[in-house]
């Protein structure tokens, strides 16, 4: 395999077909640790997120049935599920998430947690407004649920040697990255679809920020004084709009140039921090950094932790 790659690099072999090249990239071996650390991070975040969403689930369960506007996997349900059932599932969700984060009985807890997150977050989005910010977390959980994500860094630890790097550990991580990239690309595309390239001029963004903050102000919710002050000026909005489009439409660069990954992740994080500052809109998944974890060689951090744990073991010479 290495020989074939080398001969292609030197121009002696046939050039790979685009699909072959893509498959080769997606299925390239990766360490089990990388996927396992990603599982721990995403599931731990998911468990905490479901704890934070619990009050909203309870509030939603008391809404009148005529407001029920099911989306996604709940579209088949003409009426909302019974409140006790829903609150029971919402209570079990964070515990399942904790078990999945630890890798405990992963083959059961991984898919069960992903399914619970899918159903609960679909449920809270089935009352007249879809919050797109929650999609990425669920998509990541679903990919991880179908992967051998607890072959390393699981509790209790598996007996025997650590598994060798393999394509089955690399593919899910790359699929998670691909989904992250697609969500940003779609967000950028949606802006251009609704407003064309005029969006890059900044006026649309300026009015969007003003409208969003005003809506919060008149509905008695916290709004951003920074955004409120900034909308008085025209000049900041063109660079902010261009930066937004650059982050969103530029997301696919991380699929091609590995060295740009930290830069893009930093820019995307900065974009969400900016949205928080000027719109008082909080995107917890990207702002936690977990949404971008698949872009990094997580096994290095895992190896460091392992060394620290070994050094701290009692009776070991220092």
């Amino acid at each position, binding site marked *: 395999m290495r020989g074939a790659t080398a001969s292609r690099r030197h121009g002696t072999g046939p050039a790979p077909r685009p699909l072959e090249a893509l498959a080769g990239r997606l299925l390239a071996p990766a360490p089990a640790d990388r996927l396992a650390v990603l599982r721990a991070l995403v599931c731990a975040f998911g468990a905490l997120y479901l704890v934070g969403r619990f009050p909203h689930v309870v509030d939603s369960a*008391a809404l009148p049935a005529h407001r029920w506007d099911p989306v996604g996997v709940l579209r088949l349900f003409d009426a909302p599920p019974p409140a006790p059932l829903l609150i029971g599932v919402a209570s079990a969700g964070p515990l399942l998430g904790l078990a999945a984060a630890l890798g405990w009985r992963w083959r059961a807890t991984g898919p069960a947690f992903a399914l619970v997150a899918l159903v609960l977050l679909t449920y809270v989005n089935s009352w007249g407004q879809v919050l797109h910010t929650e999609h990425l977390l669920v998509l990541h959980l679903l990919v991880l649920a179908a992967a051998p994500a607890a072959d390393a860094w699981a509790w209790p630890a598996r007996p025997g040697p650590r598994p060798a790097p393999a394509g089955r550990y690399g593919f899910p991580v790359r699929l998670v990255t691909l989904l992250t990239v697609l969500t940003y690309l779609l967000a950028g595309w949606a802006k251009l679809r609704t407003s064309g390239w005029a969006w890059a001029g900044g006026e649309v963004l300026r*009015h969007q920020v*003003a409208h969003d903050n*005003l809506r919060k102000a*008149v*509905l*008695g*919710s916290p709004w951003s004084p920074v955004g409120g002050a900034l*909308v*008085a000026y025209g000049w900041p909005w063109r660079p902010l709009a261009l930066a937004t489009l650059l982050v969103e439409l530029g997301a696919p660069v991380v699929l091609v140039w590995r060295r740009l990954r930290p830069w893009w992740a930093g820019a995307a994080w900065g974009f969400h921090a900016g949205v928080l500052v000027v719109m008082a809109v909080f995107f917890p998944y990207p702002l936690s950094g977990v949404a971008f974890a698949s872009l990094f060689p997580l096994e290095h951090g895992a190896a460091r932790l392992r060394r620290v744990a070994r050094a701290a073991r009692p009776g070991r010479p220092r």
Partner: protein
Amino acid sequence: MVSVEADGTVHRLSPQTINGTAEIVQAAAVVSAEVAAGNAARLCREVAARLAPAPRAGPAHGQAGVVAGAGAGAVRRVEVVTETYDAVAWFAGERRPQRRVVHADCPVGRR
């Protein structure tokens, strides 16, 4: 949506009062959808029922906490309104709506 007290004081209602959850975007979407579907009166009655004091709860100020920014005055009416603003000008101090349409108006009674 707003509540109107006996002395005419108007208070904007919180997402929790309007829709029963703290999600502001959802509350705004519900009001828009109900107005567009011609159900403003139904929404008005629902919110008025949420604001109505319980039979043995004493004076109306027992419910005042759920009305964002409301004082201790008795809420008499609920209105479903569309107010049109120049959003950029609003932050420059122009707080009067350019247009105000009342879609529904209903009394707040006792439960």
